[in-house]
Structure formats: C-alpha cells, structure tokens
C-alpha cells in the first residue's frame, strides 16, 4: 500500500516536472523563433496589409513583390556569391591556420610556447576596436616590412580588396581566431598520446601524423570552428565595413538597403514611407539569413547529439 502511494507521488512529481519543462521549452522556443516567423509573415504581406488592423500574422493579399524588390536592390545573387566566396575563403584558411597553431600549442611543446599561448588568450581579450586604426592605416599603405616598395617603388593599398581578409585568416588573426586556436588546442590535448606515438613508431613524421592521424580525428572540432567562423564572417559588419567599402557583400548591402530603396523609389529619401522601407529591410534580412539556416540544418546534428566531442570543453 505504502509502496504504491510512494510510487504515485513520485510519478505525480515527475509528471508535473515534465509539464513545467514542456511549457518552458515551448515558450522559450517561441521567443527565439518569433522574430523569424514575424519576418516571414512580413515578407509575404502586401503593402496594404501593413496598415490593416485585422491582419496580424496571415496576410490578406499574398505577394512576392517584397522579395523581388529586396533581391533587385541588394543585387542579391551577386552579393550572395561575393559573401559566400569571402566567407568560404576565410573559413578554410582560418580553420587550417588555427588547426596548425592549436596542434603546435597542444603537442609540439617548445621553449616559450606557454608564453605564446598566453598571447593567444590576450588576442581574445583585447577588443578589435583598439587595434583597428593602426591595422587600417597599415593596410592602406601596405609595405610588407618595406619589401614591396623595394620591388615596385611604392606601397600598395589593400583596402577594398579581399586581401586583408586573406592575410589575417592565413595568419590565424582574423575575427575571433584566438577562440578557434583555443578550441583546437583543447581538442588535440584530449586525443590520447598513444595514437600519436603509434604513428611515430610506424615511421610517420610530424607532418604525416598531423595530416593523416590527427586531422581525421579532429572532425568535430573542425566542424565547430568552421561553422562559427563562417557564420560570424557572414554576419560581420565591423571588419567588413572597414575593409570593404564599395564591394557588395551581405552585411554592407543589408545596412544600406533602406537608403538604396528610397533612392530607387525616386523620391526624396526623407519622404519615403518608413514602414515600407522597414518591410523591405525585413525581407532583406530574411534573404540574408536563409543560406545560414540551410547550412545550419545540415550541420546541427553534430551540435545536437555529440556536443561533448566538439572540443569546446576538452
């Protein structure tokens, strides 16, 4: 008798907790998804529905004109290609250089490697704003320690090209690269030493061991860093607006979308309907994050089921 009562109390408690948990998770998921749902609903609305008090979520007049406007003004396909090329290049280079550095710090200890790793942590801590101006001036008159003027007679201006991104990611100093080095180091430290030693005994050099043994084992860490670096580069407006002033990439196109739209409408920008501008801008944001969501759908399972192997914790 007492056992069944205890059982029922326990099961009541469990039932109550799963109910609370369901409510909590459903509510918070709604909070997260709300802006996206709202953008979708805004994007398919007609201009007239915007002021209609009866329309909240589902529009009366479906239209694709917002999409067409946004695609035309943002020069979407060209922008998409540019952004993809930029993000993919920096991602591949950053992942490669950070993996090298991470492995160096984790397994190939040398005098002063501790100190240098402290410097990696320092690069995470210093806000990029602090070093932005000297980097900007440096890239504007890029000399490569005086080598380029010797060859061509004058320095080169690297601004408005992809070179700043390529150079910084090649040298593992791009956006948040310190974090990726940290992740790789933690991950490589977690791989048993025996694996590496077996490779050495079988006659593999350090390079072969790294490319043939360590990298295939580090796939979770590679996925984490490539996803982070791709997404953050895609959304980044801080470096992009500084280095690339006239090239068409997603983040610059997005922030100048309302202005370009009002120019296209032909009237005085200050007279254009602000709600309509905002509507097209929301559509633009939706278009900009769409590729990211598609990518996320493919890689999310790595995050969802095997996070302990992503190397964040080590």
């Amino acid at each position, binding site marked *: 008798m007492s056992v069944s009562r205890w059982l029922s109390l326990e099961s009541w408690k469990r039932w109550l907790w799963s109910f609370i948990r369901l409510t*909590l998770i459903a509510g918070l998921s709604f*909070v*997260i*998804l709300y*802006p996206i749902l709202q953008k979708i609903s*805004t994007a398919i609305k007609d201009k007239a529905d*915007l002021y209609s008090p009866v329309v*909240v979520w589902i529009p009366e007049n479906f239209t694709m004109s917002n999409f067409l406007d946004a695609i035309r003004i943002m020069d979407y396909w060209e922008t998409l290609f540019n952004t993809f090329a930029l993000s993919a290049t920096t991602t591949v280079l950053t992942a490669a*250089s950070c993996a*090298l*550095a991470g492995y*160096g710090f984790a*397994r190939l*200890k*040398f005098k002063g*490697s501790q100190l*240098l790793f402290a410097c*990696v942590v320092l*690069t995470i*801590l*210093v*806000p*990029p*704003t*602090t*070093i932005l*101006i*000297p980097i900007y*001036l*440096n890239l504007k008159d890029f000399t490569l320690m005086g080598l380029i003027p010797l060859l061509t007679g004058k320095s080169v201006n690297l601004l408005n090209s992809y070179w700043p991104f390529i*150079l*910084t990611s*090649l*040298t593992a*100093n791009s956006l948040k690269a310190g974090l990726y080095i940290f992740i790789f180091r933690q991950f490589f430290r977690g791989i048993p030493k025996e694996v590496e030693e077996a490779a050495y005994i079988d006659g593999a050099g350090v390079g072969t061991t*790294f490319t043939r043994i360590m990298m295939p084992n580090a796939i979770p860490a590679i996925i984490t860093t490539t996803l*982070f670096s791709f*997404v953050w580069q895609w*959304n980044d*407006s*801080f470096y992009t607006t*500084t280095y690339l002033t006239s090239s068409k990439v997603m*983040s610059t196109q*997005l922030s100048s979308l309302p202005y370009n739209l009002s120019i296209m409408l032909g009237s005085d920008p200050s007279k254009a309907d*602000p*709600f309509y*501008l*905002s509507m097209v*801008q*929301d559509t633009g944001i939706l278009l*900009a*994050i769409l590729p990211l969501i598609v990518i*996320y759908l493919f890689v999310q399972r790595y*995050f*969802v*089921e095997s*996070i*302990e192997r992503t190397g*964040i*914790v080590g």
Partner: protein
Amino acid sequence: MKSITQRFGRKQRSYGKQKALWGIAYVMPWLLGFIFFFLIPLLTSLIYSFSTVTANSEGIGITFMGMKNYVTAFTVNTSFNRMLTEAIVNMAVNVPLIVIFSLFLAVVLNQKFLGRSFARSIFFLPVILASGVILTLESSSLVQAINDQNAGSGGLINALGSFELERLMLQAGVSETIVNYLTGAVDRIYEIVSQSGVQILIFLAGIQTISPQLYEASKMEGATGYEAFWKITFPMVSPLILVNMIYTIIDSFSRNELTDLIKTTGFVQFDFGLSSAMAWIYFLAISIILLISTYFVSRKVFYHE
C-alpha cells in the same frame, strides 16, 4: 658502451629538439600574424593615443601630446562617459542573468524528453542569428514595432504577466531591487536568450563530460535531483562558469554603442588620436572588470584534479 649511451642521449635530445622545431614551424603562421596584425598595431595604437595624428598625402605625422586625448575623452566628448558607464552597467546586469539562465537551460536540455534534439537545435539557433549586422538591424525594425502595437492584446498580456509577478513578489516581502531586477529580466527575455547560445553549448558540453557513475552513486545513497545538481553538476561545471562569464563579458562589450562611437571618431571625424585613447580606456575598463570578476569567481571554482 659510453659512446652508445652518448649517442642515444644525443639522439633523444635531437628528437625532442626536432619536435620543438616542428612546434615553432606550426605556430609560425599565427606568430607572424600576431606580430603584424596584433602586437605592432596594439603598440601603435598606444602611441597614437598619446599624440595628435595627422594623415596627409606624405604619410602620417605624429606629435606627442601627453594625456590630452584621455582628458578630452572624459571631459570634452559629450557621450563617451555616458556610453562607457552604460556599457558597464548593462554588463553588470546581464552577465549574471545570462550565465545562470544558460546553466539552467543546459541542465534542462540535457534531460531526456520527447523532441530533445529539436529543442536543442532551436536553442542553438541564436548562435547563428543573433550576431553582427542582423542584430543591429533587428532592433531598429519598424514593422516589428507596428506589429506589436497591432497585436495590442498580446503586449498587454505580456505586461500584465510581469506586473502580476511583481505584485506577487512584493507581497511576499522580497526586496524591491531584486523584484525590479527579476521582472526586468522577464521583460528582456529575448535579449537574454539570444545572447546565451554559445554559453548553453559550452555548459551542455561540460555536463555531458561528467561521468554518469557519480549520479548513479548519489542516487543509490538517496540524493534527490536537486541535491545531485548542487553537489555534482554545479561543482563539476564551475570551471566553465568562469569560462562562460569571461566569454559573456567580452561578448557583451563587442556589441554596444561605444564600439560605434570609437569607430566614428576614427573614421568619420578622422581624430585617430582621440579614437585610440577611447579604445584604450575601453580596453582597460574591460581588463579591470575581467580581473576583478575572475579573482572572485576563481576562488569558488572547484577543479577536479
């Protein structure tokens, strides 16, 4: 015999040396970048902050000015003081909330329930969406504002909810500051959720590395879930609380108005000296906050070893 050991010893040493050489080679790309894209700019920026920088066609002229730029930043510039304090206060309010919230959610998302992987993929979505330009633009969306107005009833319920909560807690005798803090957190739930994606990820990864034997043993001894959380989960993830706190502080500082102000001063008004001085004050403020909070938290952290 001696020669063999000698040779052996030399060979061992050279193997170690060889590895060290490889280590230097592997770290080299980063080291070059660190020197050219970090260390030199950092020092240059320090020099700029103490001088007036004039850029013309011949190049850059630097005149040493002493502390003038720092004085200007604090006394002449109209918004620097306000933005710096705002950024610090915002951070002090948000960081504890984000860390506690993400720990709680990580514990919940670690339990087994129907649709867990679906819930997890939604909760990690902010890692992708709430960064950079999208976040900036989202806050200025007019359609969102007008929709909230149109859906007046929804907004009303929302306000009523936290209002009820406030009344309830005040009647229960909770101090007014705490009540305001908590209801403020409820009202800013989107802001908090959208900033805790990476933190949830880190905590979840940490919780999954705790060996299940610990929980089994505690269950055998009759510990409740609540006790298991405070005696096992919490101490085991406490190093990650420190990590997450640092990450949240850095992250909260990378997305505020102050960054824009520093950038405008540098690239619109072309006052490189003043901009560098502001950036350095900003950096020092962050370092002080990080040092203080790390000092206090790291004393409580439990390390397994």
